[in-house]
């Protein structure tokens, strides 16, 4: 009887740890390390990027998702503006349905200047428990997640955005202030996993 009880406790603990592991990083917690090859053949290490920048913006994005595509110009412009201020942007495509050639063509079409990488077998998406495109994680130089969620609240009308959450988070980090709204709900297409 005791052994059965012990087994159940252990099984419960394992199940709980599995759940915790699957939940992805929390704001204030460590961002899982990853290294991927960019679509132009360079190595991108989160740890290296974090050490050498004021923040890293990790963006799970897509080529075919209308939600993600609605943010193409905003991502391009923010990356260009904030990279001058020491923040680097990295786009990750975890969709099994969107090959590297498509990611390259899409980036060229929309003038992306930030690093782009495929995430084979959606391993990084799993590490982060990223569910949607677009979905954003901002990582500080200590490797901690400082923001997670959406770019803003209005994907269809950029001129009418009332809550520029990612921009607010980056401005706070650059000013050395706490991020007031560090967690928002990401919304968009589901990531097409293997």
């Amino acid at each position, binding site marked *: 009887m005791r052994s059965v009880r012990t087994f159940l406790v252990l099984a419960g603990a394992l199940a709980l740890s599995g759940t915790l592991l699957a939940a992805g990083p929390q704001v204030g917690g460590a961002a899982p390390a990853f290294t991927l090859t960019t679509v132009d053949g360079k190595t991108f290490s989160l740890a290296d990027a974090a050490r050498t920048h004021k923040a890293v913006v990790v963006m799970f994005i897509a080529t075919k998702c209308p*939600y993600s595509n609605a943010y193409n110009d905003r991502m391009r412009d923010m990356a260009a503006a904030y990279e001058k201020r020491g923040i680097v942007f990295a786009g990750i495509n975890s969709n099994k349905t969107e090959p590297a050639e498509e990611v390259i063509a899409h980036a060229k079409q929309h003038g992306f200047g930030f690093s782009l990488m495929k995430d084979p077998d959606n391993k990084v998406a799993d590490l982060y428990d990223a569910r*949607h495109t677009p979905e954003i994680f901002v990582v500080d130089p200590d490797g901690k997640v400082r923001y997670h969620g959406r770019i803003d609240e*209005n994907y*269809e009308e950029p001129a009418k955005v009332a*809550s520029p959450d990612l921009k607010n988070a980056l401005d706070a980090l650059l000013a050395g202030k706490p991020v007031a709204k560090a967690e928002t709900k*990401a*919304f*968009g297409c589901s990531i097409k996993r293997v």
Partner: protein
Amino acid sequence: MDFGLKISRVSAPVLFLTAALLPGAGSGSGISGEVDAKGLARRIAQEKGRVVLVNFWATWCAPCRDEFPDLSRLQRKYESRGLRVLGVSTDLGSQMPAVEKLLADLKPSFPNYRKTTGGDDGQFIDAVDPSWGGELPFSVLYARDGKKARVLSGQHTFQQYEREILKLLK
């Protein structure tokens, strides 16, 4: 997708109908009106006494298009027992010609609405259901008393929908 109103997570979704939306507007081709969070809730409330299946879709979503014939079949098969299917397109405003074409081609047996343009998309999504992240297709089943009974994320078969609907039609 205009996902607009902030709704309490414990309250029923609150959606709003524009003046253009006719209560109980019919099936067939064409969009019956635009809805935001308050309007959709009001539209669902109009069906109190029926089981309501709200299906969110978009023209670019292949699984959504695949589901349409099954949703039409479900509406026809169970209408007399009290089922009402309501479709909500989440396409961008600029995609309206594609929306109208799809409806003209598929001729659904249930009315379809379009989410209003702009607003707080995250709040609209939360209003529909806190578990939803905008992925499509996404469906919500309401019991005869108007209360949310079940959410179904992703593509489902006729039989899967039917099983859930029959639990509520009893």
